[in-house]
């Protein structure tokens, strides 16, 4: 983006050995736990979400082990129900939602707009602490008996009949939600007020647009979730008569309130991931994103439309057929801005200078998996078909394709892309590529059979199932082993690099545009020696490479 740093009067370049970075200026644990540096907070989030992903992954493996055979023989029914509930809740609230904003957003968002930090650094740290408190509560719930309502907490099972730790879990979700709200607020204000001189709205990298749209949803939708789970906890403890018909409540009301948040929440998960993909496509094809403004505004369109489609989770709940019509038509329409993004990314590759580096392999994997996830969403949006599909394994496959195939793949792509900037080390490229490939293959092995077994008639959340579903379930469980191996390999490669990886000191190892690549690697505590001044659009690759030979920089 070639911000021209205003020549600093006493710009001395310190010798590399003595370079101060945000990582090495202070090693004490206090300097980490009380840091207000967005970069360090990003790393704290990285450690936390990694911990929860490991737990969620362990639960997933237990589910797949149980489903190897039709009989419920590995776990008790009740245990199985607790395991899938905690798998879903942990993955959604402690990884899918905070993953990209908490880790990548925190680290790169201020760098990308040329700011020294986010607008409210202390609030940012508070977000992480709230997140940790929520996490500790989850561990408490898991250690003291667990919860078995499914991550959807449908009443009146949750409000009255379940005798597991529902109220505690509701409070956990309530608390964790505030972490999202505060991060959202912080990002909104940061983008509005902290942009470097010259960084106009239409010079913003698309990751910023996506993060901005996400922050909007977070701030507007998460309070509804907070209210919902709070009412649920009150209903459970005091039987106030909101959701349980036995005391005058309405269970359908719970579904409406839950999905009013939880549908927008799926965009909280995927929009930042789409932002990451925009960055990666531009960087690895060395081209301006085709139709920049369409990609930017499609994020906002998705954010707005996403608030109006929640009823597509309720086509067979007894909701009015005419309400269903409205929800169905709005749902199919939301596929349009999504398709626009995919077409623009694809078109960006045209006449590009495409490098098949590890992050780009994740981009390709994202394309394949997210496309499948998106088109199968249309199956579910078609009301007549959803009568059969609802709550069967087809739905499970759909949302794993979009959330894991989409969000997690993009997260790994982004992590591999910004890793050298974050830690000043490069992972092993070959291992990185191999892991991406294994993940892609393993993912399809795990989840593709679930589309078929769903249509064949296997309901979700079943501890035991009819024998004709076994072949596909065995395939799925085998795939889960391959997929798990892929993720582990990627993680080991990254961790290995911290000690043994090639040291990176160049500012811009990928030859990419973006202010984050114009500061030291790893960045100094306050990001920039001097406030950068932006004079160009976000993806000025042509200016960067025309006339020169395009050469591999790293």
């Amino acid at each position, binding site marked *: 983006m070639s911000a021209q740093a205003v020549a600093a009067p006493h710009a001395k370049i310190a010798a590399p050995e003595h370079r101060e970075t945000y990582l090495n200026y202070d090693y004490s644990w206090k300097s980490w736990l009380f840091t207000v540096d967005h970069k360090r907070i990003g790393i704290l989030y990285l450690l936390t979400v990694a911990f929860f992903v490991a737990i969620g992954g362990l639960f997933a493996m237990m589910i797949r082990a149980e489903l190897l055979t039709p009989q419920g023989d590995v776990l008790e029914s009740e245990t199985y129900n607790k395991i899938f509930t905690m798998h879903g809740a942990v993955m959604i609230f402690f990884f899918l939602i905070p993953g990209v904003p908490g880790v990548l957003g925190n680290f790169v968002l201020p760098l990308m707009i040329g700011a020294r930090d986010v607008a409210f650094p202390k609030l940012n740290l508070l977000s992480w602490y709230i997140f940790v408190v929520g996490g500790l509560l989850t561990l408490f719930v898991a250690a003291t008996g667990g919860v078995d309502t499914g991550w959807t907490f449908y009443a009146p099972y949750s409000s009255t009949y379940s005798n597991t730790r529902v109220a505690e879990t509701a409070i956990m979700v309530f608390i964790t939600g505030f972490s999202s709200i505060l991060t959202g607020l912080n990002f909104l204000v940061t983008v509005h007020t902290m942009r470097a001189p010259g960084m106009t709205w239409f010079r913003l990298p698309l990751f910023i647009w996506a993060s901005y749209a996400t922050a909007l949803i977070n701030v507007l939708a998460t309070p509804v979730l907070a209210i919902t789970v709070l009412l649920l906890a009150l209903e459970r403890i005091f039987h106030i008569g909101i959701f349980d018909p036995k005391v005058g409540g309405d269970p359908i009301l719970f579904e409406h309130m839950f999905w009013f948040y939880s549908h927008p929440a799926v965009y909280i998960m995927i929009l930042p991931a789409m932002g990451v993909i925009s960055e990666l496509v531009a960087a690895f094809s060395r081209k301006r994103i085709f139709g920049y403004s369409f990609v930017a505004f499609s994020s906002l369109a998705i954010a707005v439309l996403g608030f109006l489609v929640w009823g597509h989770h309720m086509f067979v709940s*007894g909701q009015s057929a005419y309400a269903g019509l409205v929800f169905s038509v709005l749902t199919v329409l939301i596929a349009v801005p999504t398709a626009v993004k995919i077409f623009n990314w694809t078109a960006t590759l045209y*006449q590009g200078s495409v490098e098949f580096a590890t992050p780009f392999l994740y981009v390709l994997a994202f394309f394949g998996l997210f496309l499948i996830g998106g088109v199968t969403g249309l199956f579910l949006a078609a009301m007549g078909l959803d009568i059969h599909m609802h709550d069967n394994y087809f739905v499970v496959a759909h949302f794993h394709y979009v959330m894991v195939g989409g969000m997690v793949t993009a997260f790994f792509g982004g992590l591999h892309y910004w890793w050298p900037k974050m830690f000043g080390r490069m992972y092993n490229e070959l291992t990185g590529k191999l892991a991406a490939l294994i993940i892609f293959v393993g993912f399809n092995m795990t989840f593709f059979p679930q589309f078929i077994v769903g249509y064949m*008639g296997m309901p979700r959340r079943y501890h035991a199932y009819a024998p004709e579903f076994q072949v596909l379930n065995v395939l799925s469980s085998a795939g889960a082993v391959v997929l798990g191996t892929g993720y582990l390999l990627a993680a080991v490669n990254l961790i290995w690099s911290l000690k043994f990886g090639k040291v990176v000191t160049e500012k811009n190892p990928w030859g990419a545009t973006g202010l984050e690549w114009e500061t030291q690697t790893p960045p100094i505590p306050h990001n920039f020696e001097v406030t950068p001044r932006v004079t160009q659009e976000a993806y000025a690759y042509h200016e960067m490479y025309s006339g020169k030979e395009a050469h591999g920089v790293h």
Partner: protein
Amino acid sequence: MLQELPLTPPSASTFAPQVDALYWFLVILSTVVTVGIFAAALFLSIRYRRRPGVAPGNIEGSLRLELLWSFIPGVLAIGIFAWGAKVYFYAAKPPPDVMDFYVSGKQWMWKVQHPTGQKEINDLHIPVGRAIRLTMTSEDVLHSYWIPAFRLKKDTVPGRYTEMWFQATKPGKYHIQCAEYCGTKHSGMIGECYVLEPEEYQRWLSGNTGEAPEVAGQKLFENLRCVTCHMAGAGQRGPELAGVYGTKVALEGGGEAVVNDEYIRESILKPLAKVVKGFQPVMNTYEGQVGEEEIMQLVAYIKSLKAQGGGKQ
């Protein structure tokens, strides 16, 4: 191999082929779209892979392309919506001549009452070729009644009635599964739907005697002393119920209500929620005295009173 791994459940209702048609259409469409876009991305990435001495192009975008690739998916999306809605409304509107079955979900079993009074648990025996309507509720939590071979499901909701109708086309035995998570033995809340030839169904019925719901309902109506207030005569304090089903009644405090299953259920459990115009709110609640099955029998009885008054509803 395909024999062992069918891609769809058996197709055994008039509804199933409609769902399958839409499904296979979408499978083909989405395969074309997915493979097409993915192949294009792969092709472009390889075709324009990084080569020394070749600089990337400089392209802004194209309004025409943007409009084109918004418009085409938009049209396809609306088409999918319209087709899906058409199929959905077929399932939403039962034909006039249906057999009424009553289903009540309960952790973790299905209780079914036949129009002729037979009861069964978990399984469902029905005649082939007849339109059948299930009026359903739940005694505790949400459940969902799903017969994959019919491609139909509907949630059963405590405190409400939901409906689902189908016409089986092929005799056989098909799974019934609870699709809405309902607690510990959710995956055990299953049964079989036996679709029988009409004679066989008659034979099954005669082997399982029972009281028709409206007959049972009539007895309840007497035993619970509903008669004292609802029978023409000296003690009458409540409205006449014969012929009231399906009509609209005016309410105290304005407004009106359609007398349907839901309304009758509410009148029994929460009589004060809607008070009929011109009457005192003296009817007391039967909450706790009657179960869902009994309420369904009372509803069937009040419905049948209409049948006597004039024509089948």
